[in-house]
C-alpha cells in the first residue's frame, strides 16, 4: 500500500522540485513488532516522502523484490527479534545478487551497539538508534540519498 503524500509539502520556492524520496518500510523474518515500523512510515510520509509498507513476515528475497518493483531509494527495516545479523546479511546479499545495491538499507529497532560493525560490514548503510526522534530519522535518510545521488 502506498501512503498518499501531503500535497501541501510540494509547494515550495524551488522551481523544479526534485522527485520525493521513495522508501520501503519493511518487516523481515518472523518479528511481529510493527509499532515502530508503522510510526516511522507515518513520520516519513509526513516529511513528504513516498512510503510503502511491506506488512509482516517477509523474507529477504520478498523485500528485495518489492524494493525493485517499487523502485525505492531506501529500504528501512525495523527488527526487534534479535535476528538482525543473519537477516540483514541475507537482505544485503540478495540486493547485490539482484544488482540492486544502489538501494540504500537503513536498520532500526532493537540493535545492540556491538552488532553495528557486523551490520555495516554486511552492507547496511545506516543504523538508527532506538531513541531517535523524527528529525534524526528524516535527516539520516535525506543525507544518505543526497550522498548517493538520485538515480
Amino acid at each position: 500500500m502506498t501512503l498518499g503524500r501531503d500535497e501541501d509539502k510540494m509547494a515550495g520556492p524551488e522551481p523544479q522540485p526534485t522527485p520525493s524520496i521513495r522508501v520501503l518500510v519493511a518487516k523481515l523474518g518472523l518479528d511481529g513488532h510493527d509499532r515502530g515500523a508503522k510510526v516511522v512510515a507515518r513520520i516519513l510520509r509526513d516529511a513528504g516522502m513516498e512510503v510503502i509498507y511491506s506488512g509482516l513476515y517477509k523474507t529477504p528475497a520478498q523485500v528485495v523484490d518489492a524494493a525493485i518493483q517499487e523502485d525505492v531509494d531506501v529500504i528501512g527495516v525495523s527488527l526487534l527479534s534479535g535476528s538482525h545479523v543473519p537477516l540483514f546479511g541475507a537482505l544485503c546479499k540478495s540486493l547485490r545478487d539482484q544488482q540492486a545495491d544502489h538501494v540504500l538499507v537503513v536498520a532500526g529497532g532493537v540493535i545492540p551497539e556491538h552488532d553495528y560493525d557486523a551490520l555495516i560490514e554486511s552492507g547496511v548503510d545506516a543504523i538508527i538508534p532506538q531513541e531517535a526522534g523524527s528529525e534524526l530519522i528524516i535527516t539520516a535518510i535525506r543525507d544518505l540519498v543526497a550522498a548517493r545521488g538520485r538515480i
Partner: protein
Amino acid sequence: MTLYSDAAISEIEKHLAAWEQTELAATLKVRPEEKPEYRTESGIPLKRVYTAADVADIPPGDIGLPGQFPFTRGPYPTMYRGRPWTIRQVAGFGNPESTNQRYKYMIETGQTGLSTDFDLPTLLGLDSDDPMAFGEVGRVGVSVDTIDDVDRLFDGIDLEKISVSLTINPSAWVIYAMFVAVAEKRGYDFAKLTGTLQADPLKEYVAQKEWIYPVRPAVRLMRDLIIYSTKTTPKFNPISLSGYHLSDVGGNAIQEISFTMAFAIAYCEEVIKAGIGIDDFAPRLSFFFISHQDFFEQICKFRAARRVYAKIMAERFGAQKPESMRLRVHVQTAAMSLTKVEHTNNLMRTAIQALGAVLAGCQSMHTNGLDEAFAIPTEEAMKLAIRTQQIIRDETNVTSVVDPLGGSYFVESLTSEMEREIWKVLEEVDRLGGAVKLVEEGWFQQKLADSAYATFKLIDSGEKISVGVNRHVDETSEAAKVEIHPYDENCTDLQIARLKEVRARRDTPRVHALLSELKDQARTEDINLLPKTIELVKARATLGEICAALRDVWGGYDEPNIV
C-alpha cells in the same frame, strides 16, 4: 444508599468554593500552576484536588469489599495476607536445556512460579528446519519442536508443585497437548497441574501479530482449548487475556482494558455457543495487564477492570459463581518505558511500576530486567528484578492492608471515570458488530496505530518526558557497556539434528494417518481438536507438521494493511 448525606456534601462543596476564593486564589496569584491543564496518560482530565463530593455519586456497592462482587477492591478477601503475589519472571532462550538451567537458577533466587517464552518459529507453528525459521531458532525464546523438548524444558521440575505460565499463542493448543502428554508420562495428577497459557488469539491479530490461520478458525481453536482444559486440567488457565500487548503497540489504559473486555466477551460467546455454561469455564479465564508509567491511572485501571469484568460476567452472561466474576491478573512492568540511555534508571522505573501493581492488587508479576531495552536479560538483571519484588513484598509493609488506596477520593473517582470510559468503548464495539468482525476489519488495529503515533509525537515534541532521553540529558554520558546475553549459535543445529532423529525413529505412516484425521475433524465445526492433537504429539508428530495440517484446511491470514 450513598456514602455521604446530601447535607454533608453540600457542606463540603461550600467549603471547597470558599477555599478556591481564598487560599487557592492567593496562591495562584503568586505562583501560577505549571500547566494550563492536567490529564492522565489516556486523556482523562485531572482536578487539582478531590473531595468527598467527587465520590458522592458512586454507589457504595460499586466499591464494596475485597473478594466480593464487583471485586473492585481485589479478587480475594485477604489478598497478600493469605498469599503474596507470585514472582513470575518469564524466561526462554536457546535449546530447552538452556532455559531449564535458567529456571533452576531463578527458583534458587526465590522465584515462585515459572514462565516460558518461546522462539518465533515455535510461536508461529514452524519447525526449526523450516526455511522461514532461518536465524530465529532459540532467539527470543526457547525452541520447541516435539514433545521431547517440553520434557527437557521441565526436566527435574515438579509440575505438581510449581505453576507454569506458557507465553504461547497461535500454536498454544499444540504446546498444551505436549504439556499434558508429558504430565501423563510422568504420572502427575492432572487436577494438581497449575499454570496458564497465554493463547488469546484476538489480541494477536491486533497487537502482538503472531498468527497462523484466519481469525475465526483461531477463535474456534481457542474455544476447543478452553473447553478441553477446564474439564481435563481444572486448575490450569487455558487463556490469559492480554492487555499488555495492546499497550505495547500503543494502546492507552482505556483501550487496553476495553479491548481486552471486548475479546473476553467474544470468547465467552463462542464457548457458550458450543453448549457450555458460563460457570463451567469462566473461573479459569485469566488476565495479563501492563503496569505502566502513569501511577494512579494504572492503579485505577486494575480496579476498574475488575469491576467491569464482574458486571459483564454477572449481568451479560448471567454467571452465578463468584469465581466466574473474579478477575485475576498477571502483571508485567512496561518494557516500553525502558531506555538504553542511562539504562540503570530502568531499575527505578520498574520498581515504581511494580509498586503500583501491588497497590492495585495483582496476583502475579514479572518485573523487567534493566537490560531489556538491549536484549534478553542476563542472570544478574533477572536477580535484580526478582529482588525488586522481594523488597516491595518483604520490606515496605504495603502487603498488610488490602486495597490500601481504596476510599481515596481521587482513586475512587478516577476508577469510576475509567469504568465509564470502558463501557463507552464496549457499547461501540457491540454497536459495530462485535469484536471478531472488528478485528477482521482492522478497527482495533487502526485505533492502536493512531494512538501509537500520537504517543510518538508527544515524545518527539518533549511533551512526554523520558528522563535522560528528552529531559535531564547528560551529554557526557556514554553508551552503556552492557553485558548482553549471548546467543547460542549451535542451537539451530541441535534442534534440527533432533528433529531428524525423531522423524527417523517414529512410525511416520501413523503420524500421517493421524494428521489426516485431524484435518477431517477441523473441517467440522463441532469436534474438539485437542484429543487428536494429544494423540499426535505422543506419536511424535512435530509442532510444525500439526500446524501445517490445519493451514491446509483453513489457509493463512492476510492482514489488513493499516499504517
